[in-house]
């Protein structure tokens, strides 16, 4: 039982950042803008969030601090993403251009600023927000240990974001409009929807979530931030595509990937897996191979937003 709880808890650390960032990508792509800048946005979000914690941790601590850091990460990710929005919406540039540029810029910027300010490129933080057990909820049998022990508040932020994303995309005016812009912007325009504004909003939200995801990635897995999120932005992109751009499927893909990753890295602590005659590297490859296999059998009908990647030009038809 203990081991199952452990796997569940550990899975959260992998799955939640992927979930948040992939959902961010969803908002951008369903508004019609491909966002390969997720990696860079995560870096910026994590950098700003951790830097915030670093600076304020002497006067604050615990959940309040982390939540404020989440806010800071979100806002900075959002602002950073506006560069992508500007280039791909206003300038109608190829959307891989600014995405690539942002991915390149972010880590260099993080290192540069960290060195300018403190001389060292790692930004250190003290973990005062680890939750070993949520009061009351943590004692619920089964659910308690899985969800409410050994966790971070970012986990709940992530789950909340998933719920809200589903609600917003499927059941609100904004969601309906956002989707129409990603599928058929001319149709949206013809009923008086400002496609540009909606797309800006979509990219901005992706920036916010990307930033939060970056922080949620670093906090449970390291004691400092060193200008990298280890390719998780690209993995989030993969989760997004794997999840067919739909909230629920993204949720499951993120957890599928999270579980695979957990098995791959923690197999040496899991009884059954440990004894299998499979080497370290094979375990590391398994999540990626599994994803490939699943994709092979599930991609016949891709549901990519139809207008994704195409700059919207009011004049053109």
């Amino acid at each position, binding site marked *: 039982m203990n081991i199952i709880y452990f796997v569940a808890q550990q899975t959260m650390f992998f799955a939640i950042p992927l979930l948040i960032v992939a959902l961010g990508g969803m908002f951008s792509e369903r508004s019609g803008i491909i966002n390969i800048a997720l990696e860079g946005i995560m870096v910026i979000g994590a950098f700003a969030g951790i830097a915030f914690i670093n600076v304020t941790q002497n006067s604050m601590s615990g959940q309040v601090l982390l939540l404020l850091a989440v806010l800071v990460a979100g806002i900075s990710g959002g602002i950073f993403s506006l560069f992508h929005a500007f280039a791909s919406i206003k300038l109608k540039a190829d959307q891989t251009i600014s995405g690539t540029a942002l991915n390149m810029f972010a880590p260099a910027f993080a290192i540069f600023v960290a060195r300018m300010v403190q001389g060292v490129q790692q930004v250190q933080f003290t973990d005062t927000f680890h939750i070993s057990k949520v009061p009351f909820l943590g004692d619920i049998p089964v659910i308690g240990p899985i969800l409410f022990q050994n966790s971070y508040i970012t986990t709940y932020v992530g789950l909340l974001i998933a719920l809200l994303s589903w609600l917003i995309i499927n059941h609100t005016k904004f969601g309906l409009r956002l989707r129409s812009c990603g599928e058929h912007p001319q149709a*949206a325009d013809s009923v008086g929807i400002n496609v540009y504004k909606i797309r800006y909003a979509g990219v901005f939200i992706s920036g916010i979530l990307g930033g939060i995801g970056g922080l949620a990635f670093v906090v449970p897995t390291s004691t400092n931030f060193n200008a990298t999120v280890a390719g998780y932005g690209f993995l989030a992109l993969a989760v997004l595509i794997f999840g067919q751009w739909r909230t629920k499927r993204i949720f499951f893909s993120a957890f599928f990937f999270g579980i695979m990753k957990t098995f791959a890295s923690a197999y040496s602590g899991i009884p059954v897996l440990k004894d299998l005659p499979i080497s370290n590297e094979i375990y590391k490859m398994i999540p990626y191979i599994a994803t490939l296999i699943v994709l092979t059998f599930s991609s016949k009908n891709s549901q990519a937003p139809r207008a994704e990647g195409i700059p919207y030009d009011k004049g053109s038809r």
Partner: protein
Amino acid sequence: MEYVIEMNNITKIFGNFKALDDVTFKVRKGEVHALLGENGAGKSTLMSVLFGLYQAEKGEIYINGKSVQINNPNDANNLNIGMVHQHFKLVHNFTVLESIILGRETVKNGLLKKDDARKKVMELSERYKLKIDPDALISDITVGMQQRVEILKMLYCDNDILIFDEPTAVLTPQEIEELMKIMKYLVSEGKSIIFISHKLNEIKEVADRCTVLRKGKCIGTVDVSTTTKEQMSEMMVGRKINFNIEKKDIKTGNAVLEVKNLTIKAKNSKKNVVNDVSFEVRKGEILCIAGIDGNGQSELVYGIAGLLPINDGKIVLNGKDITKESIRKRCLSGMAHIPEDRHKDGLVLDFDLQQNAVLQTYYEPRFQNHGLIKFNAVKEYAKKLIKQYDIRSPREEDSIVRNMSGGNQQKLIIARELDRDPEIVLAVQPTRGLDVGATEYIHKQLIAQRDEQKAVLLLSLELDEVMNVSDRILVIYEGEIVGELNPKEITVKELGLYMAGSKRGVNYEKKS
């Protein structure tokens, strides 16, 4: 005289091209006002100005006598102007209901109030006899139903100036008839309608007055009841159009294409979209397959052309079994195909004209040498086609095809396919959306082909075309051939009955 719309001296410039040049256009309250003009004359542009999609460089607009500024579709909406666009503006994975409320959503606690909307939509649907299923996905419904959705979109926000931009180009005869009725009903309720169409019959039927545009200029407005079709078309193209296609009688020869017991299964179900179809096309004839859209005719042609795998049956071209041949081999054996969807299948829109001109022949020795393209040969060939088939485009053979008008795109395809000197041409809706001039031209080309003892398999939804161009008609209904008719011996009405499935030919009793 009271005008609901007055557009005065409108000028619209794209880049350095005057799409509308000092156009004045007025619509009376409660009339159906037709707008007529060649492809690219500026009809859609004029309507887009009225609807706020484009802003005119010059000119003014009065609605109900008041001067207005229409900067975006919202403004148009507030002035109760609605528009059904030439290319439907519907999101493929939205439900009908979502499509209708898009842009006019009502919310409660931040969430969509779909129930109220549903009630209102169903009321409208009942009142105007526009049958729809509010929960169906747009991609799952027929074009006719999509059109109804577009109309409901307009009615949903209580518009009383309704613009229909070429609404009939994609409809079946039955649906067109239905639409005409609806338009008449709407006008009787006091709404005003602008109706764009290339089909003069339709204009004659519903319109009160008609304004003719030509190359961005307003030629004039006429009373439809006192003007003949010929006069209108002359205003439009600047020359006389011959509506009666001249066809000399010729002898048909051997079968070029034989289709035997062809069966094609639907993608996601066990149903056969094409069910045991057999026929042959002979030298020197235009065989037309008539039917209402969605009865398997598209799949049939796709199957013959090799673009869709077939489940059963045999295709023989000039005595050679080509059932298993690749698309390239079929082309080489003399099959040409004018596809239904020119943008999807017929052209590489981002290539230029010359590159598209050799799309089917680039590998022939005259265009390549050891795999290297002979650019000069390609260019000369494109120039030849441009001249011979009168293809007009901004930059001749260097034009990017995306920037060419639909009519000229179609001409390019036809030039490319016919110039290969094929044994048989599969022509699928070759004149869809084209003006009378271009239509006439294409018909002439097809007939010339037949006169040269070549075969043509024509697929058309337009009854006029079917009756005028073809030598023999096969009617397809639910994937089966239900009758063989001679266009000289039947009436349009009869043909319609066959197509609707309520009548079957002698040899075509239902098997099951």
